[in-house]
């Protein structure tokens, strides 16, 4: 686990995570008071949960994926990965250690969001509170199923290309999966083009992991069968992303 310790020490030493950690805590408590809450104070709690999850997505897009791409690029360029290869640390172990180092810090951020969303915005009614807790747990699971494989991809791309290019590809995939598909649906509403339909089907439907609406409008937890379908789909996408990442990963640049 030498590579893990080295990477983790490097991330902590750079301290950029601290900026996002502060924002993750501050924004959910500040942003709801910028809304017109005065005539309806009960919108503050759902708005807090909403802001907490938005911030986590922003942190995943701006910090996590960038860290992965940057570390992959830096370690491969500086010969660190090649050095560990000569010590007998194989490709999959290297990838696992780099991923774990980034995710160790990010796990703390997920806990912050989960804590704020669950405990500072929980409804008073016991049944609603139970649904709220379950929805937050489901959201964490689905969120991990999207961000964890993308982090692996950003690391692998970073070892092969420049960090900026690796970051651009992974954030592009995330944005397309979260927002781009919605635009594609608008085009498909009055268009039968097989190419667009094919693009729609093979696009990563990351938007399925977005349970923010369920929290904001107190829709209750996702039925377990539906969660299972989504988890199977996102899990499959994750495995595919992992397989591509293993192929793309290079110890030497």
């Amino acid at each position: 686990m030498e590579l893990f310790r080295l990477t983790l020490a490097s991330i902590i030493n750079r301290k950029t995570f601290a900026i996002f950690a502060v924002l993750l805590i501050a924004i959910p408590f500040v942003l709801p008071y910028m809304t017109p809450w005065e005539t309806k104070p009960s919108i503050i709690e759902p708005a807090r949960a909403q802001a907490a999850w938005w911030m986590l997505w922003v942190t995943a897009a701006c910090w996590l994926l960038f860290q992965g791409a940057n570390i992959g690029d830096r370690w491969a360029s500086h010969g660190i990965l090649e050095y560990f290869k000569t010590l007998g640390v194989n490709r999959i172990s290297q990838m696992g250690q780099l991923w774990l180092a980034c995710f160790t810090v990010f796990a703390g951020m997920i806990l912050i969001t989960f804590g704020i969303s669950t405990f500072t915005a929980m409804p008073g009614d016991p049944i609603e509170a139970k649904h709220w807790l379950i929805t937050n747990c489901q959201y964490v699971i689905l969120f991990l199923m999207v961000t964890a494989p993308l982090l692996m991809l950003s690391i692998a791309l970073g070892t092969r290309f420049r960090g900026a290019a690796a970051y651009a590809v992974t954030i592009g995939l995330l944005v397309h999966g979260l927002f781009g598909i919605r635009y594609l649906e608008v085009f498909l509403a009055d268009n039968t083009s097989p190419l667009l339909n094919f693009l729609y089907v093979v696009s990563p439907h990351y938007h399925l992991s977005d349970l923010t609406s369920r929290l904001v409008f107190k829709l209750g937890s996702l039925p377990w069968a539906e969660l299972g379908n989504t988890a199977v789909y996102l899990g499959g996408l994750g495995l595919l992303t992992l397989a591509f990442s293993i192929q793309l990963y290079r110890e030497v640049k």
Partner: protein
Amino acid sequence: MSRSTLISALSLAASGLLLTVVGSGALTKSSQLAAGDNPFGIYRSAYGKLLARLGETTIDRIWHLGVEQIVPHYMSGESHSTAAVPKGTETIVAQKLPAKPVIELAKSWIQKRVVSQHSRTNPYSLSDQHKHRVHKDIEKLMSRSYRLDPTHYGAYNSYNLFITHHTFGGTDESRDHAKVLGEETIRYIEDENEDAEVFLTAASASMNLFIIETEDARVNQTPISLETLQKYRDQISGFLTTFEKLQEKAQDSGVWDNVSTDRQVEIAQRYRFSKKTFGQFDAMIARAENPDQVEATAEVAETQD
């Protein structure tokens, strides 16, 4: 790459592909794959309300620059009724005014630059096609504001006005759309039990629905049925009563104190306006109930003339 790594990657890819196909099949069956139209729950949320209000400034800017073709009032600081200082008297007026602090002079200097940045120097007006484009842009922005917060008085009413008014490109189809819009607005608001302000939007939507429903009768000068009048009177009365109750509750609990004075005045003005328009219903119902008496009164008035 070693043989074992390659085999791992290939088996991961195969199982990933299998799971993705199985998962997407199940999701397609249960219609879950569609992305929907509310990413991260923004529409109709607290931030939707905020963005709908912020959108008003954009709409205001495009309206004044594109339709009225003047510098927006919030930039120039001048209202429609501001009387211009007669030419040649600016210096005299300026001398009579008390000296401004430096910070105010600096702000005024910046404001003048913003005004000149947006002042029209082209002697020609926008072409009709261009104006039509501007109208459509404004309509799109208003539609977005409405989707962000369907309960917002300004967002609903301005969008309704835009799609029903011929000057702004309103058609018979868009008037049908306005009917759906009014009904949807009322549906969103009906279950509200905290925010008093939204019931003024509901009252306004009900009034708009009444206007749409009785449009033909007013154009053809045929009487409006008593049932229609009573239906809308009861509905609007219900909304205004709920507004009063919720406002009283907010005042008692101290929530009303959170609302700024400007907004309190704005809400009070809207309430007075709604009350005044609602007040006409009793007279209309009285006329509908006793048409003979009304005719007789009219005849007497004509004779006296």
